[in-house]
């Protein structure tokens, strides 16, 4: 399971952030199981 900050990082969105470790603890606790939400049937 990925946390959202890792996803944002992997996709290249993030330029700078304050307090990366604290942010990772705060936002990283919320996870989704997979990318299936994004793989909509009409995506090619």
């Amino acid at each position, binding site marked *: 399971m990925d946390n959202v900050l890792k996803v944002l990082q992997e996709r290249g*969105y993030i330029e700078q952030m304050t307090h990366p470790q*604290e942010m990772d603890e*705060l936002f990283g606790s919320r996870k989704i199981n997979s990318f299936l939400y*994004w793989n909509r049937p009409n995506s090619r």
Partner: protein
Amino acid sequence: MGHGKSIPFYIGIDPTADSLHVGHFVSLMVASIMQKYGHKPIILVGGGTASIGDPSGKTDMRKMMTREEIDHNVASIKKQIAKFLKFDGDNAAIVVNNADWLLDLKFIDFNREIGSLFSVNKMLAAECYKQRMEKGLTFFELGYMLLQSYDFLHLYNTYGCKLQMGGNDQWSNIIGGVELIRKIGKDDSFGLTFKLLTTKEGKKMGKTEKGALWLDENKTSPYEFYQYWRNIEDESVKTVLSLLTYLPMDKVNELSSLKDEKINEAKKVAAFEITKLVHGEDEARKAEEASNALFNGSGSLDNMPSIHLDDINISILDALIKTNMAPSKGQARILINQGGITLNDEKVTDTNLVLSEKDFQDGFAILKKGKKTFYKLEK
């Protein structure tokens, strides 16, 4: 949906026009991804701060907007945001307007409570004001950082908002808010900036001959929008696929690794996916069909940009101006003399040409500038 705490976060949008443009796209994508992970988006529309205008990166003071202009723009922008975010459920997005808390501030109280916590020396060293130091920066504009910082404090106190996000040109203003909240004794406020969409030369992406690439279909048609992404430079394909679509990264990597002619397939996917996000799947499909019809001879011409002519006996110069292919008759002549204009696939060489019935054999004529700009002239 996931487990763990849902954290409110915010992005700000300056309502200086009645439509969002490509410059806002990355912010909305980030907010959308954060929401998919269960966090709560707060979209702050800067109806209050728009009265000042953010001086970040600007060389001149911005024209002041009236309250009526700002209110009109805020209402239009809200509709576009709904294409990216959901406004129901546990972590429903909300839209707030900082005019609601900024316009009633009292100058002396604000300066005592908030102004006293900011160092002017430190502010003037900030990147966002550097460009303005030589030409002059008004006290009015200097206040922008304080107001944006106060926005964050207000959202922190009102909604428990912990994070402000924005484009990288917002870094100084975002830091201002994070530090303000920390100065009043709370240690859980954060800031994050994301990359601006730029070309390989470092120019902001989303500029066209007609100006900005708008998300409003009345300002930039779905076809023009599709064509913009269809024609991006090869080096931008990966950036665009990863920042402006929801395609998984393994797919993004696969598509962007294509070389030479095959990279066009990746551009088609990018154009379709991005247009679908902004204008819906039907419009994306129509734009794709029109593009295929023009470039490959397959698909339908029905959906290409078109214009109805009251009088088909129009001069070629007027036709170029009417379709925005040329801004003036002088420019139109230059385009023709350079061999850049075709009518029904035949190069136009006569600047005095006047269209006639024979040019409209199927009820329409195709006017083309260069290789990529087309218009259907309908009688």
